[in-house]
Every structure is written in structure tokens, then in C-alpha cells.
């Protein structure tokens, strides 16, 4: 390794010396005093140490903190936004699930209500129908009764009229006086016969 280092230095000295003459010629042509580097090789090294130290200090104060802060802030922002987006997505999923659950509940409720309404309507209709039927039956029975009663009254009246007329006619035919007592007996008999005839 030492040999290699020495060889490198030797190469540089050689390279410097080799072209130095040319450089000197060039510099001389321009009237300047550029010289070949022989032992002054430490100058660039020392300069490098100084300028690097200055660069490191300046960058350490004015550059790297700013860049590091910006990168951290950006990373944090991206992380925060990803977390917020994930949270929003979770919330959206939960909201969607809630909505779907509510929708299903509402649909069930509506179905139940419709079924209940149908059932109620059916029951009401049934009740109305049965009530109407009862009323009709009652009306029919009442009408029948009234008709029967009227019929009886009419028949009775007709019987009375007919009996009276018959008695009157019979009296005229027999030309004899029928006493009220006879008349009553005749009427009763006739009515009885008519009633018997009606039963048959």
C-alpha cells in the first residue's frame, strides 16, 4: 500500500513536472509567473480542508436544517393526509354500512306497514261485509215481518170485509134478520175456517 501511495505521488510529481514546462512556456507567453508545483502540493490540500470546513459549517447552518425540516414536514403531512384519508374511508364505510342497515330496516318496516295495512283493510272490509250482511238480514227479516204483518192485517181486513159482505148478502138472501149475536158467531166461524184454510 505504501508503495502504491508513493507511486501515486511519484506519478503526480512526474505529471506535474512533465507538463510544467509546457505550462511555464504558456505562462511565459502571457507574461505571467505560473510555476510547476514541486513541493507546494500541500496548498490545494490545505485549501480543500479550509473550504470544506467552511462549506460544512455554512451548509450545516443554512442548508441541511432547512432541507431536513422541509423533508420531515412533507413526510409528516403526507403521513397525516394518508391517515386522514384512511380514517375518512373507514368513516365512509361505516356510514355506508349504517345507511344500508337503515335502508334495510326502513324497507322491512315499510313491508311490515304494508302488510299491516293490508291486514287491517282486509279486517275492516270483512267487518263491513259481515255488518252489512247482518244489517241486510235484519232488514230482510224486518221487512218480512212487516210484510207478514201487513199481509195478515190485509187478510184479516179482507176477511172481515168479506165476512161482513157475505153476512150481508146471506141476510138479504135469507131475508131474515140476523142478530148481532148471529153475525158475530158467523164471522168467528168464517175467520176460523179461513185461518184453517190459510194453514193448509
Amino acid at each position, binding site marked *: *500500500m505504501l508503495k*502504491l*501511495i508513493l507511486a*501515486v*505521488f511519484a*506519478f*503526480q510529481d512526474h*505529471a*506535474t513536472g*512533465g*507538463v*510544467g514546462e*509546457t*505550462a511555464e*512556456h*504558456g*505562462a511565459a*507567453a*502571457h507574461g*505571467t*509567473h*505560473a*510555476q*510547476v*508545483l514541486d513541493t*507546494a*502540493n*500541500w*496548498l*490545494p*490540500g*490545505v*485549501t*480543500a*480542508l479550509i*473550504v*470544506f470546513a*467552511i*462549506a*460544512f459549517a*455554512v*451548509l*450545516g447552518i*443554512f*442548508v*441541511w436544517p*432547512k*432541507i*431536513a*425540516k*422541509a*423533508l420531515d*414536514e*412533507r413526510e409528516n*403531512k403526507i403521513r397525516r393526509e394518508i391517515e386522514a384519508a384512511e380514517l375518512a374511508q373507514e368513516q365512509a364505510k361505516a356510514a355506508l354500512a349504517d345507511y344500508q342497515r337503515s335502508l334495510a330496516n326502513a324497507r322491512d318496516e315499510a313491508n311490515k306497514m304494508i302488510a299491516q295495512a293490508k291486514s287491517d283493510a282486509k279486517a275492516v272490509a270483512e267487518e263491513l261485509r259481515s255488518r252489512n250482511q247482518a244489517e241486510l238480514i235484519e232488514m230482510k227479516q224486518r221487512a218480512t215481518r212487516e210484510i207478514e204483518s201487513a199481509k195478515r192485517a190485509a187478510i184479516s181486513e179482507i176477511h172481515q170485509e168479506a165476512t161482513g159482505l157475505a153476512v150481508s148478502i146471506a141476510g138479504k138472501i135469507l131475508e131474515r134478520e140476523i142478530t148481532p149475536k148471529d153475525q158475530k158467531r158467523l164471522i168467528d166461524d168464517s175467520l176460523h175456517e179461513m185461518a184453517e184454510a190459510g194453514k193448509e
Partner: protein
Amino acid sequence: MFSLASSSPTDHVVDLLNPGGIPLLTTHTITLIVVTAVFLAAMIYAARRIATGPESEGNERYITRGRFPQMVEAISIYLRDEMLTPVLGEKATRQYLPYLLTLFFFILFINVFGLVPLADIQHLLGLPTYFGGTPTASITVTGALAIISFFVIQIHGFRELGWKGFLQHLTGGLMPGPIALLPIVVIVFVVEVAGLFIKPAALAIRLFANMVAGHTLMAVLIGFGAMVAKQGGGTGSIVGISLLSGVAAIAITFLELFVAFLQAFIFMFLTAVFISLMSHHDEHEHEAEGHEHESHSAKGAAQHAH
């Protein structure tokens, strides 16, 4: 003589003392100062554009505007999250990130500026060559950066392991142990101590050698036309050779641009790997299997680098 503009094609890789008659300065020192000034201005500008704006801007405040700041940000995030955190862990990455990123961008700027033919431009303008070339093609510059890395690595080792742990590390974990292992411990100790210096030396030589080699190759390619002319070649051969070597030089320039990034990355990354190697090993054992794998990768990378 060799190139059309510069006095020498190797002006990119050699350093000249007292450029323009300025005492105690060299072209590389002036280049270093100029590049550092540009580097600081560019990075401060980038930091301002990357920094989060006022709240009144809303979400826009988090957006980085400008291609260069975006590039700095993308590189910083990539190096931090994909390269350094797996090797160093969260805590050490935060601790050493300013140094490592400064190292990376500093070397990168110098390497990339080295590709700009500043010396040739000055030559074309009839000016003395005040600055130009690639300072990282100087072993003392890369050596200086390696010395800084050496101190960072060793200080981290002492802080992390303590004196006792540091010495134990140098014995490869064989001490305290059987007395019979003492000869081996001595050998391991010598190797480990040498390794402390060899590692940063390898960093310095790798960067220096890559920069010198790339720029020398480019200079040689560019100089082919002039060489043919010097040898008394005809116009056709001069144009033909110049075209061929020009195309090759352009291709090598792209390769050098890649090398500029690669070497900056390697210098920085290996420094991080050496820091991680001086970390407490128990922590690694207690951490997840994945991290253990990464630690092995880091060691592998270090061995590969050697």
C-alpha cells in the same frame, strides 16, 4: 502543443503554482475556492426552494420548485432512505447526514466543474490560466477529504465503543481470550491498525486515480489530431483522426460525467460504511434480521471497495 485551446491537454489534471502571478495560490486552490462559492450559493438557493413555504400558500407550500432544487432533494432523499439508513440506522443517519451529504455534493461539484474546460476558455480569451482543472485530481485534495473522513470515523468509533471497545475492535474481538491466541491477536491488531489508515487512504487514492485517469484519457484523445499534425500528417488524416478522437472524447466525457457522480457517491458511501463498521456490534445483533443482512451488505461493499 497538443490541444487547440489549452497550453497542455493535461492542464485539467495538473496544478500550476502562482497562476497569473498570484502568490501562494495554485489553479486548483483558486478552483476550489470558486467551486465552493458556487456550491454554497447553489445549495443555499436549493435549500430555500426546498424549504416549506408560509401557511398562506396552502398545499403549494410543500412543493419544491426548480429543477436543481428538485434534483438536490431527490438525491438527498434517495441517499438518506435507500443508501445511508440501511447501513447506519435511523439515529446515526440523522447524526451524520449533514457531513455525508456535504461530502457527496462537495466532491460532485468539484468533479463536475472539472469537466468544464475553464482553463481552455481562459486560454482562448488570451488570459493567463487562473483557475480550472479538477481539484479532485490532486492527491492532497482527496487526501484532505480522506483525513476529515478518517477523523469522523475514528471519533465515531471512540464515542460508540469507548476506549476499551475500540481496542477490542482492533483485536478483532479476540481479546480478552485464550493466551494461545496472543500471536494471532498481535497480527490482527497490526492489520486492524493499518486498516484504520488504509481505508481513508484508499478513499483518497480511488477518487484521485479516477479523476486523473479519466481526464488524462480525455486529454490524450483530444490531442491525437495535434499529434498527427506534428508528425507531418496530411489534412485528410488530421481531420479524420480529429473526428474519430473527438467522437471518442465526447463519449468519454459522458462516461466522466457518470464517474463524477459515481466517485462522489463511493467516497461518501464508503465513509458511511466505515462509520457503521465502527458501531457497536451488539446493536446490530439485537436488530431485525433484515438489518443484519444490510450490515453484511455494508461489510461486503467495504471489502469490494478494497
